[in-house]
């Protein structure tokens, strides 16, 4: 790929598949829905330009700057420099974009995946959250906020393990 001389849109997409979230390294930025799209266009000099569109999970998520750097690094390592990264806010990021496979990866990593749809969240975490370790639904919300903006903190009353829940957002 590196020495073929021609870089296609598919090549760029494939490289971006290797970029993981800095806080949850089992998920790629594509799994999380942070990577919105990759497009190509020909600029005024007739050169091919790739445009990478990303969206932050939360407005103040400090990982966003790091993710931008990681994208840049991944492409630079493959000798790709003809790209720009654009951050968009709308449509606002939602956990609904996370597919079942990503949710399962999250659970195996020890984080309870988001339950339900972002549109049906009740009063503060009213949903039943299963413990990612033992599967019990006998769990208790400890804090609506946790180690990162996108998570809430839970406690399993059966296996007694504390765990993070990726909030439905």
């Amino acid at each position, binding site marked *: 790929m590196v020495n073929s001389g021609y870089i296609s849109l598919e090549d760029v997409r494939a490289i971006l598949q290797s970029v993981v979230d800095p806080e949850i390294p089992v998920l790629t930025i594509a799994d999380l829905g942070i990577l919105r799209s990759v497009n190509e266009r020909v600029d005024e000099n007739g050169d091919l330009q790739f445009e990478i569109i990303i969206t932050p999970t*939360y*407005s103040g998520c400090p990982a966003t700057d790091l993710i931008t750097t990681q994208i840049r690094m991944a492409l630079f390592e493959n000798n790709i420099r003809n790209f720009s990264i654009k951050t968009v806010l709308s449509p*606002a*990021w939602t956990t609904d974009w996370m597919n079942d496979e990503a949710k399962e990866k999250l659970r195996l990593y020890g984080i309870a995946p988001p339950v339900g749809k972002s549109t049906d969240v009740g009063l503060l975490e009213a949903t039943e959250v299963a413990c990612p370790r033992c599967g019990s639904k006998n769990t208790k919300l400890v804090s609506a*906020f946790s180690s990162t903006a996108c998570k809430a903190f839970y406690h399993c009353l059966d296996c007694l393990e504390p765990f993070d829940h990726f909030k439905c957002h």
Partner: protein
Amino acid sequence: MNTFSQYIIHLADDAIIMSQRLSEWTGHGPVLEQDIAMTNIALDYLGQARNFYQYAAILLGGDATEDSLAMLRMEHEFKNHLLVELPNGDWAQTILKVYFFSAYQKLLMQQLVQCNDEQVSGIAEKSLKEVSYHFRWSMEWVLRLGDGTAESHQRMVYALGDTWMFTSELLEQPKYHQGWVDYASIKKAWMEEVAKAFSEASIEWPHGPSFQTGGLDGKHTEHLGYTLAEMQYMQRTYPNSEW
């Protein structure tokens, strides 16, 4: 500076002062979980502030940047509501401040999402989700404290006495508004929402008037200067320093 950029800066200023104030709780929360809650909410506000300042910097042009707007303006140039600059006080006072502000901000963002400026509506769409969460969280605390022990109730009563006079400004239409928001409807919905929560939390509706205004036009309480002194210290002492 035209009214458009003034309005965007007003939205940004509210967010950054809320953020700065709440971040003062870092390491001082009553329990670790709520310490984390405060700092997470502060981070959301910081993100909102950055989004609005970045947009304002584009509108203003020249050498304005998100950093210069946040770190190099004086208190009379800030257009935040007086409520957000008040000292944190005790837990009850901070909770009530977050509750009053997020109840307002939720109604505000719901309307800004509909506005015809793509950037503002995008920021509002993003913020609304976070703000709704702040609102629910702070309301649960209002209920818990108001309807909790004799002491927690008393502290809510005191907190209300210290903050109520600043609430009418929160519902006032800024003179540089852009016609995107119906402030009268926000006021009505806010009053209803707060009345409902107070009744559930066994908090008596305040009798005193709410009369303090001026923040929207840069006339602030003495507290803002001290907050800015702390927030802007690094950039003013070491100009152009970067993180």
